[in-house]
């Protein structure tokens, strides 16, 4: 049963080729059916392979299927080969499952776009590349997928290239990812030289046998992590992701929330032995993850563009995944990846539905009170927001809690504290978004209101499905405190992620930590409520609806003042400052500076190219004289 896994990637690529070649002759309906059907077929294969793999004993993993020997000569070998094990199983299920729903959603969302066929060709191609990335059994093939998803992402960000901002965003994503790719390539080269193969099994074996020194392992791990920071938008290479929101919203959901951006996390988890062996590299991963989690969250606080809030939120959540990997809880990191795929794509798609309903309006200041106009969009949105905020019994709670508990258990208190701070802000900005969008005064522009409509079925049905998964997906990974075997997810991944030295904490501490998580989430939501609904001019209906909350706040108004003055205002201002100074000036500045530096050198060099033969001969002569001088002296 599991043997069919190598077929998973091929339906989307065939579909993509057909769309490219015969695209102009196909009807819209046919395009939709074919593109969605191809991904669905992949999903079926993935499901079959997954169910089959449940019956296989852990020792037999990974199952490798070599399609053909690709690079067979020279100092190293790399086959065009796929491997299937629990980790890839999780990834292919997420990619094809969520991918299918997003394809389906796109049918409605992109219905009136003139680049409809092109869009689905890119999206299918992306799915293929992503599947190659997660199924590859060696790093060279993984790099094929890695570059492939990057290219598709670039094409899709710039999909509406008529918008200059979209073209610029594509460019930015492109340049930043180059830097990350450089790390990946160098890490890959070092692995090839050190191990003589890039097969994951060979790398793990080499580490197991202690074939290479720890310093080299650290170097390789850090280089690869640089690659991961590029793809997964971590400090300092996160800057491209918010701009990438210029692409169509389903693209943001699929590529920039659920799949591609998690490739870095996947790679770190895939090479968990390497990172664990290095130690230092793992600490760096945890620290960068934690800093990113907080940093991005602060920036999400003040964004007014609904998609940019979600983008910063994605960066922050990816930070949590890296915290998980960095503190050694790889399973928890992957678990968060898996739950995040559901609720974040849910959030993006619901946001897309809102934007669609408002004829393209993305500014939250021009929304408000949409709850009653979008009855099928609001509940899923709310579920997504609750899930990401870490309210118990929804998926986000379990995964985030698993990461933070492990961080604490490992004695990484600083990382844990950062994670917790991030959690407050997550709850705060998510509910700020909910309140600004769905509650409060209607601030909708007249024209948009005229066209205001709920989205079609093909959009709302995927929302409903994703909402269900956002609720239930967490129950495969219950906290350890509920029983040794409660964490099915972790046990499923054990063939890939060997349980390390677990930090031991008592059940009481664990409950306490859980309580802390819940508490900070509640504080965040509460604060959002206060600051975005509790303002002069709040409709009385709201007061009537939450009388106890209202009274509580009213009576302790001076507390709010202090709270606001001491915590939120500095936070908001700080966030503004960070966004204005650091993000725009330092990082963009660095990018622009490197761009103008290359431009400058290019200018100087081409200035020498005067067009006069004599100058050419002069340079030639100079070269010859220097050459002889070097040889002689």
């Amino acid at each position: 049963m599991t043997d069919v896994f190598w077929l998973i990637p091929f339906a989307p690529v065939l579909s993509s080729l057909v769309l490219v070649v015969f695209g102009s002759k196909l009807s819209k309906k046919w395009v939709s059916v074919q593109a969605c059907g191809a991904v669905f077929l992949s999903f079926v294969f993935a499901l079959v392979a997954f169910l089959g793999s449940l019956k296989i004993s852990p020792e037999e993993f990974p199952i490798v299927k070599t399609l053909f020997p690709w690079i067979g000569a020279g100092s190293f070998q790399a086959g065009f080969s796929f491997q299937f094990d629990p980790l890839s199983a999780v990834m292919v299920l997420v990619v094809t499952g969520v991918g299918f729903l997003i394809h389906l959603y796109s049918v409605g969302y992109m219905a009136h776009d003139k680049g409809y066929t092109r869009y689905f060709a890119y999206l299918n191609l992306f799915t293929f590349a992503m599947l190659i990335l997660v199924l590859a059994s060696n790093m060279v093939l993984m790099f094929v997928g890695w570059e492939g998803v990057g290219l598709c992402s670039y094409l899709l960000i710039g999909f509406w290239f008529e918008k200059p901002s979209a073209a610029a965003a594509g460019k930015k994503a492109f340049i930043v990812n180059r830097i990350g790719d450089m790390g990946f390539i160098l890490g890959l080269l070092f692995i090839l030289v050190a191990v003589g193969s890039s097969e994951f099994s060979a790398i793990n074996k080499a580490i197991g046998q202690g074939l290479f020194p720890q310093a080299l392992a650290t170097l390789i791990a850090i280089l690869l992590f640089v690659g991961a920071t590029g793809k997964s938008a971590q400090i300092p290479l996160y800057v491209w992701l918010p701009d990438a929101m210029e692409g169509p919203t389903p693209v943001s959901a699929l590529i920039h929330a659920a799949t591609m951006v998690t490739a870095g996390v996947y790679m770190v988890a895939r090479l968990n032995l390497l990172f664990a062996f290095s130690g230092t590299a793992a600490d760096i991963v945890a620290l960068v993850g934690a800093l990113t989690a907080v940093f991005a969250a602060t920036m999400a606080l003040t964004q007014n563009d609904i998609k940019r809030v979600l983008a910063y939120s994605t960066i922050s959540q990816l930070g949590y995944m890296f915290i998980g990997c960095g503190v050694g809880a790889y399973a928890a990191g992957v678990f968060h990846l898996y739950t995040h795929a559901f609720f974040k794509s849910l959030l993006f798609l619901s946001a897309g539905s809102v934007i669609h309903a408002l004829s393209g309006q993305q500014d939250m200041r021009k929304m408000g009170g949409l709850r009653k106009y979008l009855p099928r969009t609001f509940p899923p949105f709310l579920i997504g927001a609750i899930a990401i905020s870490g309210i118990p019994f929804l998926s986000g709670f379990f995964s985030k809690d698993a990461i933070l508990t492990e961080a604490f258990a490992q004695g990484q208190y600083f990382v844990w504290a950062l994670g917790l701070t991030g959690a407050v802000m997550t709850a705060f900005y998510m509910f700020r978004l909910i309140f600004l969008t769905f509650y409060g005064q209607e601030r909708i522009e007249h024209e948009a209101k005229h066209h205001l409509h709920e989205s079609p079925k093909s959009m709302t049905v995927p929302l409903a499905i994703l909402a269900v998964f956002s609720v239930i997906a967490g129950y495969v990974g219950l906290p350890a405190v509920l029983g040794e075997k409660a964490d099915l997810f972790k046990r499923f991944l054990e063939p890939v992620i060997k349980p390390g030295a677990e930090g031991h904490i008592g059940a009481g501490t664990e409950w306490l930590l859980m309580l802390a998580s819940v508490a900070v989430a509640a504080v965040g939501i509460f604060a959002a409520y206060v600051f975005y609904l509790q303002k002069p001019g709040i409709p009385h209906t709201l007061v009537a609806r939450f009388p106890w909350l209202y009274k509580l706040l009213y009576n302790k108004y001076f507390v709010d003042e202090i709270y606001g003055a001491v915590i939120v205002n500095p936070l908001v201002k700080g966030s503004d400052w960070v966004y204005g100074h650091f993000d725009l000036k330092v990082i963009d500045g660095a990018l622009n500076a490197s761009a103008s530096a290359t431009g400058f050198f290019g200018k100087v060099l081409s200035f020498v190219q005067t067009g006069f033969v004599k100058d050419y001969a002069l340079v030639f002569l100079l070269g010859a004289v220097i050459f002889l001088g070097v040889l002689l002296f």
Partner: protein
Amino acid sequence: MAILLFFLFAAFAVGSVLGMIISRNQAYSALFLVVAFASLGGLFGLLGAPFMAVVQIIIYAGAIMVLFIFVIMMIHLGEGISAEKKKWTIAAAVFMGIILLAEIVFAVKGAPAVPMAGQEMAGTSPTEIGRLLFTKYLYPFEITSILIIAALVGAVVLIKKREGE
């Protein structure tokens, strides 16, 4: 006696190259060059290569330079062309030329391949050259025929008048 001849030829060669550099008129430059090449022929003779001396004078001073003068006559430019006006270029070129000279001369120091003491120089007979040309160097000799074809055809392609031109 021979050493005097050497310096005479050397002076002629260097002098006429300098003359060629200074002269503004291409025709004069070409004539200076004829003198330079002829003196080089003399030097070849002094080195004990009489055949090469003859070849040098016939082919270079005779054929090639005549070709040059022929072309100069065809395009009769009237007044001459002055030297490069960008002083900087000339300065840089002279400077680097001198460094190049210094580098090579420095490398010569003590090299047995460059004897600085006089030695007997027996002449080579053309027979020996001919024998080598058709035995050891037969293959490169054949290649020169390809080279000449390429040059001829190439020249014709560039300047032949075609129908309708």
